[in-house]
Structures are given as structure tokens and as C-alpha cells.
């Protein structure tokens, strides 16, 4: 998966599409498998990136990899009360409004109002927080100032980001990252969580989940949620029923800015553990190294030998994810220092440049070629903290390349940039005119088929299809075999 943040307009269409399809049931009402956060900001649940309190992800001393929350050793004393589990207060109490009141209120002196009603108790309630409470409040002292990522900036830099003419924000859409080294799966005491071999989707077997809640604290992205009604954890399923039918997931399909790309990659699972032990600043590269070149004959042969169908290999060769994350090095993992190796790569956003007050005129200082990267309003350290575990070189590379593509396309389409200037920009950004055109095409012009390369799922070959269909004839249907209710 790739999310191109430079194109995200923060419309929340993805969130609503997901909500309507998957989480409009009792118990899931507070969940947002897909949400869009404003950065700088505290996110959802509040300050989810603060692993000092949430204890998500892995930690390592360079030799051993251990869960920060309930490792095998720590599960026994902590199973009765999970010390790092977020509670409803960290999310919000879901509510609706008693709209009936607007129509049914008796005639009176006052205009009838629809009061907020708790979706849990059904009683009137005060709204104190919501799923997107700090939307667009990038410079806020109350919200954005609590963003855990701001720690890497100096006080001066932080103050600058709050000044009204230098304020900056961008949107960060988040879904489950379907990680290569998922800490939620590793933490599940019941073994109910698993990664699907075919496509890497991380799922929770609802029949085997026993509500030990370990996945919720173990996931550093807080993308497993506890269904308070059924007593089971639930999470983003990447719309696998849609994928298996060749459709894009609901959030991908509905994305207005067309920022989302989907495709499979071939990777070497044996390299994951070793990669996860590397120091923070090498993690982006270490994860990239696990992804293999699907055009390499040796890789193709190895994939075939391990039983990967040709259709899946062909999809990997066309995958936009491979191009963004590996070939062009534009896609970066969110908080790779959690060492789960998220398989959702973000193309970092080009942010507005610092304005300079020149007498009465406020102007942008863009004399230098890559001034927009170096003098962006959001210090590059901030993006580095989000997308490259502090290794700002990786972010700078992605931003400069994007900018070089813009300069090149400006030369091609408008023509007010000299060719040698544009070529110099490309060369400095480690890019060729051909590659720049490809990046431009996949970023700006991509059609449905370019953005979503869905491998054939071979449903006819699935295990359950191997059993005799007559055995189940007239006895089973689709979907859950029992009503998901507590008894």
C-alpha cells in the first residue's frame, strides 16, 4: 500500500466509506479502522504515538527483539489487568443525536433541539472528545502542541510552528499497516491473530479471540480495537472480501484525491528478524532490503519454488507499491522505529515554504533550487521522526525527488524553466527524465488499473474449496455461522 500525502485533501471520504461498510455495529461504533489525522496533532486515539505510555511495538538491544507490552514472560502476571490498555477515554464515547425530538417535540416557546445521546448507554451526554477532535488545528497550543513527534525539535522550532504566518499542517490518513513483523499477532495469547500467507493481510479469528486485549496494547499504531459489546477485538481487514472479488478496498476505491495505491510485493521473510534488529537510522533501508525485485530471474524462480502462482508474480511486477517504495524510494514507512515494518508506505508531503516578511510584503524565499525542501515550514526533522526513524536523509531524498519532478514537468509543460536547470535538478535528486515522467504519470494521471494492481486470489484453489462441496451442500451459507452476540 502507498498513500501519497502530497495529494491528500483531508476530506475523510475514506473514513466514512469504511465506517459505513464495517463499523456501524454496536460495539464498533467508536472504531475508525480508517481515520485521517492532522499533523502536527495528537491523533486517534489521543497521543497514540506516545509509546512510553501505550507500550506498543517492539524494542531491541541489538540482539533480541521483544514486545514492549506483554511479551511471553509478562503475559502471566498481566493477564487479569492489562497495564497499558487504552480505555474508552483515550478514544471517545460514541454518540448520536435524538433527531426524533426535532419532529416530535410538543409546541413550545423554544426551538426543539437534538441532544447528543450516548451510543453505549442511550442517555444524554456531554461531548468531550471525538474521533477527529483536533482536525486542522496544526498550530494549536491545546492540541498540536501535545504531538509526541515534536520532541525532536528545538524550542525555537516549536515556537515557529505556532506562529500564525508560519503555521503548517498536513493530513495523515491511517489504516492498519498489515505489518511484516506484526506485534499484535506476536502478542495474541490465544493465537487468534494471523497473517494471511497469500496477501499478508492481518486478521483476527473471531471464534478464537478471548478478549485478553494484548493486541490492542501491542499494536503501536492502535489499529486493533476492542469491541465492547461482543468481547472480541476487531481490526481493518483490508476489505478482503472485496479484494478476493477483484475490487479495491472501500477506502482506496472512494479516495477523492486518488492518493492510494495497492499492489503486492515479493519479500524475503527470512530477512525480517535480522532487519528488525538494526539500529533506528538503518531501519528504512533494512525494510527496503526485504523487498525483492520481482523482475530478477532468481527471485522469480525462488517464488515459483515456494508455490507462488505466476499471476501473483506478474502482479508484483506491475505493483505501484514496488515502484514507489523500492524503485523510486519515495514511499516511506510510518514510524519504522516501532520495528513492525508497516507495509503501508507514505510519500511525504511537500509543505509550504517559510514566508519572509519584507517590509509590508510577505514573500516566499525560493531562490535556491531545493529551497522548498530545506526551508519548508515544517522542519525536516519532524517529517524524519514520522517517516524514517530520525534518518532525515531518507525524507530529504523523497522530497527533493518530488520537487525535481515538478521542476522537470514545469519545464516540459509550461516551458519557463530552462532545460539545463531542470536536468540539473533531476540529477541532483538522483532522477532521470524517464523516471521523472513515470513518477509524474503514476502520481498525477494514474487510472484505476494503474493504482490498484490486485493479484489473482485463486479462490478456486483455496483450502476450503479442496474439500468435497457435496459435504456442505444445503447445510452452510456465507458469512458468520452464529450471531456475533455475547451470551
Amino acid at each position, binding site marked *: 500500500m502507498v498513500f501519497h500525502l502530497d495529494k491528500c485533501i483531508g476530506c475523510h471520504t475514506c473514513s466514512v466509506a469504511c465506517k459505513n461498510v464495517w463499523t456501524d455495529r454496536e460495539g464498533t461504533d467508536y472504531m475508525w479502522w480508517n481515520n485521517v489525522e492532522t499533523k502536527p496533532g495528537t491523533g486517534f486515539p489521543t497521543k497514540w504515538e506516545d509509546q512510553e505510555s501505550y507500550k506498543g511495538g517492539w524494542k531491541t538491544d541489538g540482539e533480541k527483539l521483544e514486545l514492549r507490552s506483554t511479551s*511471553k514472560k509478562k*503475559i502471566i502476571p498481566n*493477564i*487479569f*489487568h*492489562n497495564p497499558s*490498555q*487504552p*480505555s*474508552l*477515554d483515550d478514544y471517545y464515547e460514541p454518540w448520536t443525536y435524538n433527531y426524533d425530538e426535532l419532529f416530535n417535540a410538543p409546541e413550545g416557546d423554544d426551538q426543539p433541539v437534538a441532544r447528543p445521546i450516548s451510543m*453505549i*448507554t442511550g*442517555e444524554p451526554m456531554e461531548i468531550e472528545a471525538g474521533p477527529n477532535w483536533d482536525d486542522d488545528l496544526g498550530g494549536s497550543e491545546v492540541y498540536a502542541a501535545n504531538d509526541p513527534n515534536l520532541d525532536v525539535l528545538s524550542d525555537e522550532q516549536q515556537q515557529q510552528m505556532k506562529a500564525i504566518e508560519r503555521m503548517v499542517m498536513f493530513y495523515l490518513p491511517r489504516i492498519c499497516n498489515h505489518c511484516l*513483523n*506484526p506485534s499484535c*499477532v*506476536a502478542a*495474541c*495469547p*490465544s*493465537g487468534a*491473530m*494471523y*497473517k*494471511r*500467507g*497469500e496477501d499478508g493481510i492481518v486478521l483476527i479469528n*473471531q*471464534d*478464537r*479471540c*478471548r*478478549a*485478553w*486485549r494484548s493486541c490492542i496494547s501491542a499494536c503501536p499504531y492502535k489499529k486493533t480495537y*476492542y469491541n*465492547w*459489546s*461482543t*468481547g*472480541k477485538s476487531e481490526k481493518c481487514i483490508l476489505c478482503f472480501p472485496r479484494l478476493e472479488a477483484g475490487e479495491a478496498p472501500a477506502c482506496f476505491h472512494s479516495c477523492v484525491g486518488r492518493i492510494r495505491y495497492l499492489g503486492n510485493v515479493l519479500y524475503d521473510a527470512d530477512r525480517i528478524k535480522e532487519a528488525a534488529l538494526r539500529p533506528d537510522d538503518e531501519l528504512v533501508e533494512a525494510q527496503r532490503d526485504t523487498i525483492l525485485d520481482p523482475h530478477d530471474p532468481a527471485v522469480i524462480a525462488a517464488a*515459483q519454488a*515456494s*508455490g*507462488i*502462482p*505466476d499471476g501473483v508474480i506478474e502482479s508484483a511486477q506491475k505493483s505501484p507499491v514496488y515502484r514507489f517504495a523500492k524503485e523510486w524510494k519515495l514511499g516511506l514507512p510510518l514510524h519504522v522505529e516501532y520495528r513492525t515494518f508497516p507495509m503501508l508506505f507514505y510519500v511525504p508531503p511537500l509543505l509550504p515554504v517559510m514566508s519572509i516578511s519584507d517590509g509590508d510584503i510577505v514573500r516566499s524565499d525560493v531562490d535556491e533550487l531545493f529551497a522548498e525542501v530545506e526551508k519548508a515550514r515544517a522542519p525536516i526533522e519532524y517529517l524524519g521522526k514520522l517517516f524514517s526513524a530520525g534518518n532525515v536523509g531518507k525524507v530529504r531524498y523523497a522530497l527533493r525527488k518530488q520537487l525535481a519532478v515538478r521542476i522537470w514537468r514545469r519545464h516540459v509543460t509550461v516551458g519557463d524553466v530552462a532545460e539545463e536547470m531542470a536536468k540539473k535538478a533531476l540529477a541532483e535528486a538522483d532522477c532521470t527524465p524517464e523516471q521523472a515522467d513515470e513518477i509524474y504519470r503514476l502520481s498525477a494521471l494514474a487510472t484505476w488499473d494503474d493504482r490498484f494492481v490486485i493479484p489473482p486470489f*485463486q479462490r478456486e*484453489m*483455496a*483450502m*476450503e474449496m*479442496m474439500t468435497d462441496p457435496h459435504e456442505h451442500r444445503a447445510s452452510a451459507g456465507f458469512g*458468520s455461522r*452464529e450471531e*456475533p452476540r*455475547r*451470551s
Partner: protein
Amino acid sequence: MNDFIMFGVLPYVVATVFLIVTILRYRTKAFSYSSLSSQFLENQQHFWGSVPFHYGILVVLLGHTLGFLMPEMILSWNAAPLRLMLLEVTGIAFAVLTLVGLANIVLRRLTRPLMREVTTLGDWVVYLLLLVQVLTGIGVAVFHGWGSSWFATNLTPWLWSLVKLSPDVTYVAPLPFLVKLHITNAFLLVGFFPFTRLVHILVVPNPYLWRRTQVVIWNWDRSRLRDVD
């Protein structure tokens, strides 16, 4: 006659219900096997309820099990008065710990509106039975002291007679009312067990400790896939 029904027949009825219903429930309603944690809705009092209750009842149950499995060892330990005192006091301490936890659990469910939404009739049955069980247990320990010894001499042989399918209720018949209530209530708990959330005890996650860290499941039979090509 009453004694025979209570201590010679009820245990078998209860054991049969327990076995049949737990297995049936697991096979047909696997989804319902959950600890139904409510920590998500309330995080503070949960600690003072769940933690003391579980640790307390685990130690108390361990004590009962030891008395059942190795009565001679308990009796020889109890031969010295000081050691007997130590065992009895430990038992009472953990029983009180259980009671404190249980009280917090019940109060939490009673007083918090969010909690009431996720509390079912089955939960209340369990809490009532557990309260009776813990209170009678503490009562027995206080009013009919040295239970660790007479458990080993009277109840262990009776329990073994049940296991051997030749119930001998003469061991239980002379015991005081409070003890009999404690025993009968315990069997009621076992009888209600398969119908309530108590089934989570049967699915404690022990394989976790020795399974592989990551779980990957393939839906495809990959060897067949390649053969097809």
C-alpha cells in the same frame, strides 16, 4: 436421604451438564468463548477488582486441589501447630483478597452506567454464587477452624469416592451446615459454569508460551497450485 441427593447425586448431575454443555458450546458457539473483558470501558476500579479476585481465588483453589490430591502431605504439614496456623492464616488472607476483589467487581458493575450496559443476567448469577461461595468459605475458616486438616480427613475420601463412582456420603453427613452450603454452592457454580462467561477458564492461553512468535496461515495449497500450472 437429603445428604445423598446433595452429595451423592448432585455432583454427577452437575458433572454431566458441565461436560456436555461445554463441549457442545465449544463446537456450536465458539464465538461465545470469551473472557468478555470490560477493562476498555473502565480502567481503574477494574484493577482493584480483577487482580485481587483472580490471584486470591487461584491460590484458594490451589489449596483445595492440594488437599484433594495429597491429603497426607497436608496432614503431616499440619502436625506442628505453628505450621497449621500459617496454612490457615494464608488461606484466610487469600480468601479475603478474593472477597475484596469480588466486592470491587460487583460495585463497579452496580454503580457505573457504562458497565451496566455490558452486564448480563448470567453475570449476576455468577457474582451471586461467587459471593455466597467466598463468604461461606471465610465463614467456615473462621467458625469451624483447622479446615485444612478435616478437609484432608473427611472431604478428600468423599471426593475420591465420587471419582470412583461409589459415592460414600457418610464422610459429609456429620459436617456443619455452613460447610454443606459451601459444598453445594460449589457444585451449583460448576453447573452454571458452562452457561456463563466462566468458560474463559477453559481457554486460558497456555500454548502462547511455546508457540512461534508469528502466525502465518495459507489458504492455498501451494504444492497443488504449482502442479496445476
